[in-house]
């Protein structure tokens, strides 16, 4: 036994440090979530400093639970994360398969494909919302205006003119509005993270066994069957990795939401917490704990689903 004691002793500082590293923030959040703690209160100045005497039990949780805006934030978080996962995985698989073949200029295409991943999230959001999606000045505005001009021109044309005069004016979409801002976020993050999926799936495609493919060809498998029964199961694990990593990253999206709409209509959980932190630390901490629980549920759910569908 003595020969085990020394290694354990030597490991202790690292383990203790790690424990502090993780446990201190978590336990502080837990503690704050059970007390009344606000930054500014003229009526109850005792609530402005954290103290056990302000114990509120599950009051903060109850308060948050009963807020409509909390449920909206959860709804938005799930909508944004799931849409991004769905789109990046489908696009990732499709693009990875496309560029896995040999064609002239493959090297350059691959480098270009990866590049969105190196754009900073905030810059990405600014570029998309101002230069691409802006209904007046962005590419969208220009395109819609151009299409309207074209239709107007065709209305005066002989023969087809009467057909085009039935067409309505195209309306550009404002992506800063309550109903649409989440879609803008989904679009820009999908654009940025698809390369990540492509990168991981492409490396996995290159390790696919060619003789299995040939055996399947001889067995009469169509291209779709080869994809469905060989490639997709082969990609199941890398897809699970892509989904897990992205779920972790996108549950905490913040910059894009801030830049697109200042949280107008598409607050997600982190943004909601960020607003609460401006004053009500107790409620913010309770929401934080909810967020941790949500992240775990999402992770377990996603893994189960992937395991079932892909592994047969």
């Amino acid at each position, binding site marked *: 036994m003595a020969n085990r004691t020394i290694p354990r002793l030597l490991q202790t500082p690292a383990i203790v440090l790690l424990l502090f590293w993780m446990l201190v923030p978590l336990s502080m959040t837990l503690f704050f979530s059970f007390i009344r703690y606000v930054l500014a209160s003229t009526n109850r100045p005792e609530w402005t400093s954290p103290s056990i005497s302000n114990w509120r039990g599950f009051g903060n949780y109850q308060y948050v639970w009963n807020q409509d805006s909390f449920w909206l934030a959860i709804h938005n978080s799930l909508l944004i994360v799931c849409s991004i996962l769905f789109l990046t995985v489908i696009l990732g698989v499709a693009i990875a398969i496309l560029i896995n073949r040999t064609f002239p200029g493959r090297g350059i295409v691959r480098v270009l494909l990866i590049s969105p991943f190196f754009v900073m999230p905030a810059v990405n959001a600014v570029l998309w919302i101002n230069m691409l999606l802006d209904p007046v000045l962005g590419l969208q505005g220009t395109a819609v205006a151009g299409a309207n001009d074209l239709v107007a021109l065709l209305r005066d044309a002989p023969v087809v003119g009467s057909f085009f005069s039935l067409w309505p004016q195209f309306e550009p979409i404002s992506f800063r509005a309550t109903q649409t801002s989440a879609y803008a976020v989904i679009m820009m993050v999908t654009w940025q993270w698809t390369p990540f999926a492509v990168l991981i799936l492409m490396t996995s495609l290159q390790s696919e*066994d060619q*003789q*299995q493919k*040939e*055996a*399947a*060809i*001889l*067995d*009469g*498998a*169509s291209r779709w*069957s080869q994809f469905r*029964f*060989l490639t997709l*199961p*082969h990609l*199941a694990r890398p897809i699970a990795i892509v989904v897990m990593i992205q779920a972790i990253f996108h549950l905490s999206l913040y910059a894009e939401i801030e830049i697109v709409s200042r949280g107008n209509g598409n607050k997600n959980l982190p943004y909601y917490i960020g607003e609460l932190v401006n004053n009500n630390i107790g409620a913010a901490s309770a929401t934080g704990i909810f967020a941790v629980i949500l992240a775990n549920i999402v992770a377990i759910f996603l893994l189960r689903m992937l395991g079932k569908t892909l*592994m*047969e």
Partner: protein
Amino acid sequence: MGRIVLQKVSKKFGEIEIIPPLDLTIEDGEFAVFVGPSGCGKSTLLRLIAGLEDNTSGDIIIDGNTVTQVPPSKRGLAMVFQSYALYPHMTVRKNIGFPLRMEKMDQAEIDVKVNTAATSLNLTDYLDRKPGQLSGGQRQRVAIGRAIVREPLAFLFDEPLSNLDAALRVGMRMEILELHNKLKTTMIYVTHDQVEAMTMADKIVVLQAGVIEQVGSPLELYRAPRNLFVAGFIGSPKMNLITGPLAAKHGATTIGIRPEHIDVVASGGTWEGTVSVSEHLGSDTFLHVKVAGFEQVLTVRSIGDIAVKHGDKVSLSPRLGELHKFGADGLRIG
């Protein structure tokens, strides 16, 4: 039925001609073995027949139908690969049933066929395992099962046993032969192991650099190799090939005598030599003998264990009736 005819079939990879135009006929029900050194184009030839490679010119005819333009799955051939090429995510049952599932056969019928194949291959206990949980021999049997259920016109085997250990290889060899006796389906079997070729084949096709050197039954090849390459390739240990004045005396550029056709005699043999290495296998003894005047070391095989060792003087008597003579062009004379 399963008569396979190749007419002037050739294959180029880019500018390099791997297989110059060749003609070959494999009769229905025949067990044909392609044998040759590594890189001679055996696999390529098999893949051409299977349709996994397109031939550069010529025609492939199966049962009278030209299949050159027919996709692999429609040629009615089943292939067994060296690496087994099992589908790793499917159970043994699904693996064997996969070709039937692709034919859209209904599940009940698939189950019957899979069970029959599994029984004949002793795989019933493993049907619900994944390939990763099987031994090499079991995996190869699954691959064979997957080929059998399709009831193909012909089976193509590409070195199916070379990933197995020696003992298992002998066992599987017998199983494949039994399968052939039972099904009576044409089989084409690629190997670089000439013992496999000799023991299994009805017809051996010896290839070198994409060229067919000789086609014949194992004993034809053994008794009358058409040229020096076949003479050296078929038979184990290798035939002794002797050049120089001794060959000239027999009216040839090269003469060949198999190790088993040289007898060790007490005295008064044709050649006197010194043993450099003796290999005692118990059933046989292989002697490597240096004979004065020969450039090559002679290999001699004698039955049983004879008491000679390194440095001993031996007297050798070749059976002149078994002598093979080759001309300057390397072709057999007489």
